[in-house]
């Protein structure tokens, strides 16, 4: 009946002014006209202004020589290279800090999110305090803090602070030795000192010029090891598909963790040892006033990475906590009553349900981290924004082209992320739900 209302009642006669369809169409045409008019006006103004200021237009400047140095580059870069290459250098630097930041923030965020749910009161409170303190201060403030106050206050290379297992053990030994005054036996301090000696001299140093690490040189046969690892990875993926099918069909689980470790880590390790360990670590050596060998990571990168990953970790921790808490307790209890051991309850019952809630906001945090990496311009880390929209824009004055390219990169990253997100959501959606 509802399909043919006109049979029952003639369509009400309304004046054209009151017909919602006609009104809607008029509004839309007016709005579209307004937007088009604004666009044309902006275009004409831009043309006139650019001509008046004698600014070149078009993307020809990408072929011109940039003529400025960049203090960190993943690909070969000289001052005589073009603006196009500067763009690539900046983009790679952005991706580098984003990928590393995402990895650290994920590990830290999951650890803190789980710690917030700990039954240990102190652990839960400490994690809560971390989240509140970090979340409630601006990111740029934190970046400047790490850069100016922490890394800026680092000593000169000759007094570098050593980082790693050995300095930690040495510090523990010193602390325990100090406690001997209060009647602590000397054995723990001696044990720590012995362990520190066994760990060897420190290899990683922090000073006011950044982080100095040993340099990794891969000898002949390195590509063979990499190829083995890749082959192991492919074999593992195939094995995983087969194991899942078999488990779905017969219920027999397959030790995926161990076989995966064996294929991806063990096999390359065997080749590595068989080839006589063709990798050499050149430790940093202090010569004169600076380190002569080793790899130096610029302090801007260290500060940005620390600030981005700790800041994002606070948000990830909240997402993880909310996700785990949202899984009803009955699910865990039902799994236990089925006789599943604790680890499988987590892996097959709690985590899959929690992940469904965690992953969408998690990816938006990843995207935020990538977008926030543009704050690098505040401390001079040469990311896409700093070198391209900063220095290159200043030199060429071609604001429209350069900002459009920069924005396009971030927009593209956003679109790719949301496309992946939609795909994931569709895959994870409860069938028929």
């Amino acid at each position, binding site marked *: 009946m509802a399909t043919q209302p006109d049979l029952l009642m003639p369509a009400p006669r309304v004046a054209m002014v009151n017909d919602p369809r006609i009104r*809607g169409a008029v*509004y*839309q045409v007016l*709005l*579209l006209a307004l*937007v088009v008019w604004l666009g044309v006006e*902006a275009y004409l*103004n*831009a043309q*006139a*202004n*650019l001509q*008046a200021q004698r600014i070149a237009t078009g993307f020809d400047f990408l072929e011109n020589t940039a003529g400025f140095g960049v203090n960190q580059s993943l690909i070969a870069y000289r001052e005589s290279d073009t603006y196009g290459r500067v763009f690539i250098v900046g983009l790679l630097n952005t991706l580098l800090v984003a990928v590393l930041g995402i990895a650290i923030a994920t590990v830290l965020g999951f650890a803190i999110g789980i710690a917030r749910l*700990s*039954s*240990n*009161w*102190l*652990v839960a409170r*400490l994690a809560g305090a971390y989240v*509140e*303190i970090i*979340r*409630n*201060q*601006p*990111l*740029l*403030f934190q970046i*400047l*803090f790490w850069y*100016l*106050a922490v890394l*800026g*206050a680092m000593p000169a290379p000759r007094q570098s602070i050593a980082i790693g297992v050995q300095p930690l053990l040495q510090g523990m030994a010193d602390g325990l030795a100090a406690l001997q005054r209060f009647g602590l036996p000397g054995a723990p301090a001696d044990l720590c000192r012995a362990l520190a000696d066994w760990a060897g001299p420190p290899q990683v140093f922090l000073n006011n010029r950044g982080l100095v690490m040993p340099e990794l040189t891969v000898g002949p046969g390195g590509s063979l090891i990499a190829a083995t690892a890749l082959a192991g990875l492919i074999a593992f993926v195939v094995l995983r598909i087969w194991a899942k099918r078999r488990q779905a069909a017969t219920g027999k689980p397959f030790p995926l963790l161990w076989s995966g470790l064996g294929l991806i880590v063990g096999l390359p390790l065997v080749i590595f040892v068989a080839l006589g360990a063709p990798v050499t670590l050149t430790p940093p050596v202090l010569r004169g006033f600076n380190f002569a060998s080793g790899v130096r990571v610029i302090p801007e990168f260290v500060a940005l990475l620390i600030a981005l990953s700790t800041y994002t970790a606070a948000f990830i921790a909240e997402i993880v906590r909310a996700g785990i808490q949202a899984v009803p307790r009955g699910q865990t209890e039902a799994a236990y009553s089925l006789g599943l051991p604790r680890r499988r309850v987590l892996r097959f019952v709690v985590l899959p349900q929690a992940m469904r809630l965690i992953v969408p906001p998690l990816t938006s945090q990843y995207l935020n981290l990538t*977008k*926030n990496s*543009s*704050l690098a*311009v*505040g401390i001079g880390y040469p990311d896409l*924004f700093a070198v391209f*929209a900063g220095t290159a*824009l200043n030199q060429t004055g071609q*604001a*429209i082209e350069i*900002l459009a390219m*920069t*924005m396009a990169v*971030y*927009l593209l990253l*956003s*679109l790719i992320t949301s496309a992946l997100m939609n795909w994931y959501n569709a895959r994870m959606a409860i069938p028929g739900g």
Partner: protein
Amino acid sequence: MIDNPVRNARVFVRRDMVPPEPSPLARHGIFGWLGARLFNGPLNILLTLLCAALIAAIAVPLIRFLLVDAVWDGASRVDCLAETLGRPVGACWPFIGAKFAQLVYGFYPAGEQWRVDLTFALGALLLVPLMIPRVPYKLLNAVMFFGVFPVVAFFVLVGGRFGLAHVETRSWGGLLVTLVVAGTGIAVSLPLGILLALGRRSQLAVVRALSVIFIEFWRGVPLITILFFATYMLPLFLPDTWTMDALLRVLVGTALFASAYMAEVVRGGLQAIPRGQQEAGEALGLGYWRIMGLIVLPQALRLVIPGIVNTFIGLFKDTTLVLIVAIFDFLGQMRAAFADPNWATPSTLFTGFAFAGIVYFVFCFAMSRYSVFVERRLNREG
């Protein structure tokens, strides 16, 4: 039938209550709590000890720096040097005292700073009753705060009329700029965000498409590119007869940016309102704007107050970015103050960061607590 136990003499029935046994010491009181929450099992004992060590390692030096070793009085850097005092020196609070006016007002003329104070006071006077749920006249209050107050604040701060001297925005700075940017963002983003959210759910295809493009564009790019866009690109798109104030350009950028985020928050609220509400409105013969304004939005906005407050917190934190386009907000003024050779001491940097950190934390934490309070209240009522 059950035998009557009283008649059946062989059955013993207890008539009085057994006094309860005191619970074991390990289960109640402070020790029970410690045992259950901190020291149950070797792993937890280890974790507790590690955490305690971590807290001690952070809190003890922090308290020493901020309070115990801090210098409270002084006129210049000499008073904050370890050599002068002959003891380890913590925070140099006279530095903050000396720079306080700069941190709050920027370079706003000293004789006119009462206008800033007046604006702050007026804002607080309107904001506080707005935030307390029990105070009546919410609609009037909201109109005053979001509609009238920005206009009044504009004339008081900029001046040039009503006998007030004109103060160029170039001399504004410090907390004033931080609050002006955040305040404008809040005042503009709420109505614009609502319009965009309605546009995104509109039946009209063109309106919907334009809203989606606008929202996704601003949300997809970092704020800093928008500030650069506003600073370098916007003047190119305007006729050369228009000169736009540097602060105004930034305000436009942040307000549009915040609107896009606000639109998504409001959309969440709109989606939570059952369709029946709108249909009921239609059945009563109300038009679109009346249905939205009288039925749907009052319910939807109440639901998303926590989300709105969270957007405000994000906006407040994001105001720091204006320092990259050479507008000296609170953090920018702090950074400028570090460069003063009169106060160059080893602890100046840490003092400044500690103070700025506390200020930002107080603002943001207060807002987040407020959003938690509103959320609890909504849950209780709903």
